[in-house]
């Protein structure tokens, strides 16, 4: 092999290596970007495991293969390389000529061959490649929770959940709901918080509202019971206070009836309220022989029980389970003045029992009627005359020929009168019957020329 051929071969290998490296770097960079993007997309969309996605690395082999093919196609021909070596060696065309003709004695005078230096300014390519490698690494190493888009953004309902949890605790603590029910509600709440999704917040809010409604309903029922109980306890307390302060003014029969009524009220209340029952456990079961001390003891127990009920309602209010009106109603129902009760009962002893009397006393008196009197509905208004009623109209009368009146008979053909009368004013001025127009413009003599020219134009 001649020296120039060796030099060309060396130069060609050098250039091929550089082109392959350059092209490989470019193709791998593109492939890496593609791979990293696919990895992130698949992990985010369907949560594909990373181990499977590592299989994409096989594509690198294909990419490198493509790069090598592309680079080999880019390598200049031997003739071009020979020309390049001729140029950089200052051979003056002798090396180029050597490809097709025999140099003869000129070969001895051929200058020494200088292989030119190839320089690749590949800083940008290397930087892009490094960036791509980093991108691929990040696409694999980034935690799943940061890329997962299949699960929608969680909805932050912690504040509402905490509030409802507090409500459940209060209801459980106050024994308004059973322990099992409380646990069920807490489980539902926890599930709701876990499944709260920003993708469908309405569903979450509806569930929260449903849970809040359940708690409110339970609270409302409990509050209503508490109000009723407070009312009964107030009546009993008022009666006991009345007996304590004005019992001596009552006659024997009324006193006995009042004692019996009080005893009945207290027993009834104690059956529903364990606290009251516990406090009155030592009380003798003789309704007609309640001493002053016993009455005071009953009164104190009733007050204590009322306060306890009021405290429970206050807790419910604090937990936003009942409104302020309910709490105020409880306080209002707990107030009843016993002054003058003995006189009132004595005055109405013939018309009502003591039980009816004390009930009316604490509810504002019998003259103004009961505050919670039920509304009765009767004699409903009819819709007659107020509601539109569709009614088909009768057909209009058609004049029958039988109803026509004969004016006369003609034996000739009917004649059509042509009238030359034309209106001289108004919108139909100048119009004639059958003339085809409803209005005829009068053209003044001095305008005739212009109008004529207008219609004569091509």
């Amino acid at each position, binding site marked *: 092999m001649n020296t120039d051929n060796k030099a060309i071969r060396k130069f060609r290998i050098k250039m091929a290596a550089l082109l392959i490296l350059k092209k490989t770097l470019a193709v791998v960079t593109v492939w890496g970007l593609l791979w990293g993007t696919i990895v992130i997309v698949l992990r985010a969309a369907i949560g594909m495991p990373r181990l499977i996605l590592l299989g994409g690395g096989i594509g690198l082999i294909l990419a490198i293969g493509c790069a090598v093919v592309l680079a080999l196609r880019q390598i200049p021909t031997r003739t071009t390389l020979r*020309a390049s070596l001729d140029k950089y060696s200052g051979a003056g065309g002798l090396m180029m*000529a050597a490809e097709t003709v025999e140099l003869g004695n000129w070969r001895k005078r051929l200058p020494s061959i*200088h292989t030119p230096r190839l320089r690749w300014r590949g800083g940008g390519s290397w930087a892009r490649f490094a960036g791509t490698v980093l991108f691929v690494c990040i696409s694999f190493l980034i935690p799943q929770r940061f890329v997962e888009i299949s699960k929608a953004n969680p909805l932050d309902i912690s504040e509402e959940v905490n509030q409802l949890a507090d409500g459940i605790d209060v209801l459980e603590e106050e024994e308004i709901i059973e322990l099992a029910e409380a646990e069920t509600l807490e489980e539902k709440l926890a599930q709701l918080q876990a499944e709260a999704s920003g993708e469908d917040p309405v569903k979450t809010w509806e569930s929260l509202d449903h849970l809040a409604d359940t708690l409110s309903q339970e609270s409302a029922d409990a509050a209503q019971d508490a109000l009723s109980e407070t009312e009964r306890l107030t009546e009993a307390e008022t009666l006991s206070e009345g007996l304590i302060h004005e019992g001596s003014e009552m006659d024997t029969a009324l006193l006995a009836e009042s004692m019996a009524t009080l005893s009945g009220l207290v027993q009834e209340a104690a059956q529903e309220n364990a606290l009251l029952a516990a406090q009155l456990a030592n009380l003798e079961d003789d309704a007609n022989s309640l001493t002053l001390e016993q009455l005071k003891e009953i009164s104190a127990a009733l007050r204590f029980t009322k306060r306890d009920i009021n405290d429970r309602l206050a807790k419910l209010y604090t937990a936003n389970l009942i409104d302020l009106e309910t709490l105020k109603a409880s306080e209002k129902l707990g107030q009843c003045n016993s002054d003058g009760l003995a006189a009132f009962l004595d005055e109405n002893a013939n018309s009502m029992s003591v039980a009816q009397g004390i009930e009316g006393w604490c509810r504002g008196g019998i003259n103004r009627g009961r505050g919670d009197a039920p509304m009765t509905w009767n004699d409903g208004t009819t819709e007659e005359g107020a509601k539109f009623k569709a009614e088909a109209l009768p057909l209009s009368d058609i004049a029958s020929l039988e109803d026509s009146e004969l004016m006369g008979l003609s034996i000739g053909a009917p004649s059509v009168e042509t009238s030359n009368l034309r209106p001289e004013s108004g919108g139909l001025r100048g119009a004639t019957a059958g003339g085809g127009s409803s209005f005829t413009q009068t053209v003044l003599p001095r305008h005739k020329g212009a109008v004529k020219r207008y219609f004569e134009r091509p």
Partner: protein
Amino acid sequence: MPDNKQSESLLQPEELSPAVELTAKVLAELDRVLLGRSALHHMVIVGILSQGHILLEGVPGVGKTALVKALGQLLSLDFNRVQFTPDLMPGDIVGTHILQQTPAGKREMSFQAGPVFTNILLADEINRASPKTQSALLEAMQERSVTLLGNTRSLPSPFFVLASQNPIELEGTYPLPEAQLDRFLFKLIVPHADVEVLDDIISTRRRGEPPAPTWSMSAEQLHQLFDVMDRIFLPKPVSRYISRLTASTHPNAPEATEEVKKYVTYAASPRAAIAMAEASRASALLAGRPTVGFEDVKVVAAAVLNHRVILNYQARFDSVDTFAVVDSLLTALDETDLNLPDDLEIHSA
């Protein structure tokens, strides 16, 4: 006519060296006769070896006519000078038929050859003649023949037109048409002489007259040089480079530079590529090589292209001449057409 096919074997050193010595001798003699014009003499000899016509452009007094006269003496060839004037007629150049009486008393039209029938025609101040007269040279320059009244007469071989023109006097002159400009192989600019040269001329030349050549080349030797020229090898990559260079003078060419796209109106013709190839061969011969290299093309490119590339008015506004445009092409075009990516550079070791 030389064969267009490349020689199958290179000229060997022993074959080439007499021709190289001869051209060196001609150059040395020219340099001796006319001082300080070595580069110009080199290009003129390249033009002569290429058998091309040369247009010398320069201000009066720089030695254009003296150069042509010295060349005529040096080459031992017939030399005619025509001073082109506005009233010069075509017949004054190519010749005319005149009525003559034969010794037998018969009258007939006989052809009186004009000054064009010579080896070297000095067309002095060629742009002073009318376009009609200038056009009389078209056939002579291209076909090397003259046709008059249906008779075509060949001109002596070799035939060169060495024309001169003055670029500064525009009044009463007629710019050469593009067709005629294209027939000139080179348009060479004859520059002012520098101080040293002027000093030499004044001190060594009485009234500035150049000395007569002490040696002259015979017509036979000149034809031998032409034969050698035919055997100078033009490698394929070099011919490709010449083609690309010529094609790149077109504003729409893919390899055209920004200067070409911006300033060129009309590009070089195929005749320019042919001329460049021939001139490159001559340059290689003068360099003592049997093959044409890229450097030979670069030596002759500007002289070949500068009168063939027509610039637009924008170039005038920007003071850009054809030399700048050609220079941009020579700088931008990779001779070897490696087509390497932009970020891959190749440097000499």
